[in-house]
């Protein structure tokens, strides 16, 4: 398979399209947790109950007339599941316990509904840029359509009942993925992360482990689901996100003013590494991709599309690399493949610019 063909299949809209504020906000996600009132939660349910939930969801989806495609976990190969995880369409949990678990996906892959994950239903909408309200609207629509034929577990005092007490109430997790190199370079994230906590929100690096954020990419999300309306949760998150956007912009401006040449040098060195290296580990790739993306935002690099960071952060993960290679790869082989995939992707844009072919 050529890279171009692979990409058309692999890249989903939130990865290669731009949305509002997409110079800093890569994507927005809304997730609603819902459960059937007639069945035990996935923590303890029997195979029979699981199959029954799965069937009830199928019936509701058909009656609701949603044109989503059903992928059953037991039908998928390990690598296919891993790719879905890396695209943020399913969780690692769903991929693991597969007996009656499934995901309903839209063509664009902006909607995914997980069945029998931690909750019976996890309705998820994923959009490029800052589009939380749009995501919430869509998720509510789907939620309403499903509820017409599916009896939700709901309590007047406690709201939507969920397997884990951290999700009860609205069952809503709203999150945005942000690229914050300016705040990282100016050492401000250590100050911002605890400040965000004061608003019932949490910030964390989503690639890499612990406090290390690969590619300077952070996910900001609400931590509490009970006691606030969905709209207020989203409003509060938006307010903080807008503040972070303003601070990131200020940090970038300050960096350009005080150390413009050094910054340009750093960006172009990283660009050089991505264009010419033959072996690259994921940590270095993430750092360079972040630098290049910043360089594009600041105008140091002109002939590379902005979405390169979104796209390549995902495409250079182990699952994707192996899918592209068509089989298992050892770590060293992955580093070779990663380097060549990045080079090819960058060259593709050259030819695209010259030939004007569309992806």
């Amino acid at each position, binding site marked *: 398979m050529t890279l171009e063909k692979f990409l058309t299949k692999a890249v989903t809209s939130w990865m290669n399209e731009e949305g509002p504020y997409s110079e800093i906000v890569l994507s927005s996600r809304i997730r609603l947790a819902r459960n059937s009132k007639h069945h035990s939660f996935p923590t303890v349910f029997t195979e029979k109950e699981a199959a029954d939930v799965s069937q009830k969801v199928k019936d509701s989806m058909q009656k609701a007339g949603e044109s989503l495609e059903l992928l059953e976990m037991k039908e998928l190969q390990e690598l296919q599941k891993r790719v879905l995880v890396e695209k943020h369409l399913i969780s690692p949990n769903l991929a693991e316990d597969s007996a009656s678990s499934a995901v309903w996906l839209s063509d664009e892959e902006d909607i995914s509904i997980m069945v029998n994950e931690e909750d019976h239903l996890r309705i998820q909408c994923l959009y490029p840029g800052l589009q939380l309200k749009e995501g919430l609207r869509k998720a509510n629509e789907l939620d309403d359509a499903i509820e017409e034929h599916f009896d939700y577990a709901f309590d007047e005092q406690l709201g939507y009942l969920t397997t884990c007490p951290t999700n009860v109430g609205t069952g809503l997790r709203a999150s945005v993925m942000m690229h914050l190199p300016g705040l990282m370079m100016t050492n401000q994230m250590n100050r911002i992360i605890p400040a965000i906590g004061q608003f019932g929100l949490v910030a*964390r690096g989503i690639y890499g482990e612990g406090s290390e954020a690969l590619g300077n990419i952070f996910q900001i999300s609400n931590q509490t689901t*009970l006691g606030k309306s969905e709209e207020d949760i989203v409003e509060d998150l938006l307010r903080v996100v807008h503040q972070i956007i303003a601070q990131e912009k200020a940090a970038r401006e300050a960096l350009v003013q005080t150390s413009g040449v050094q910054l340009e040098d750093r960006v172009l060195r990283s660009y050089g590494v991505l264009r010419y290296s033959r072996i690259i580990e994921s940590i270095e790739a993430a750092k360079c991709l972040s630098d290049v993306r910043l360089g594009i935002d600041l105008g140091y690099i002109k002939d590379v599309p902005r979405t390169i960071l979104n796209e390549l952060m995902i495409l250079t993960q182990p699952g994707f690399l192996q899918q592209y290679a068509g089989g298992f790869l050892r770590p060293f082989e992955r580093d070779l493949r990663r380097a060549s995939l990045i080079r090819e992707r960058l060259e593709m844009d050259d030819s695209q610019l010259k030939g004007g072919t569309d992806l």
Partner: protein
Amino acid sequence: MVCQECQQRPAALHFTKVVNGEKTEVHLCEVCAQDKGDAFLASDASAFSFNNLLAGLLNITPVVQQPNQSQHSDKETIRCKECELTFPQFLKIGKFGCPSCYESFREELPPILKRLHSGNAIHQGKLPEREGGSIHVKRKISELRTELKELVKEEEFEKAAGVRDHIRSLEKDIDQQGGDQP
């Protein structure tokens, strides 16, 4: 010891995480711990269990909140009438077994929920169309009551009378539906 995430609050939860045979110490405060789990699960190499983390978090709750001895021994016997999960089991795994668990453990939940949801224990969000029950009407009534107060304050008595009638008719509806007390 300070939390490794926020570097601010004291670390309350200590774990050893094993990734590819390599052990790492994890020290988190309760705030960071709550949402940390997803992040660990999202990283492909991690064998870290969020359940244990939350269980640790919940387990602290009743001891801190309810030093009362007799109440504590009662809790040992609370059991969900549907799925038969006991309250101590819930605390241990940090997850419910079925929707009825919420009903069975109702008395015990507020301190836990308040702890997890910055002091809140009452849902203020969306109501499902069918399962929402009479609460749709109740919310409408409370909106109308606020409106009524405003109208009375502004001495718009004619309009106020209309709103009052609307409230009464809604209250009647709930009474006739029966079942739960308004």
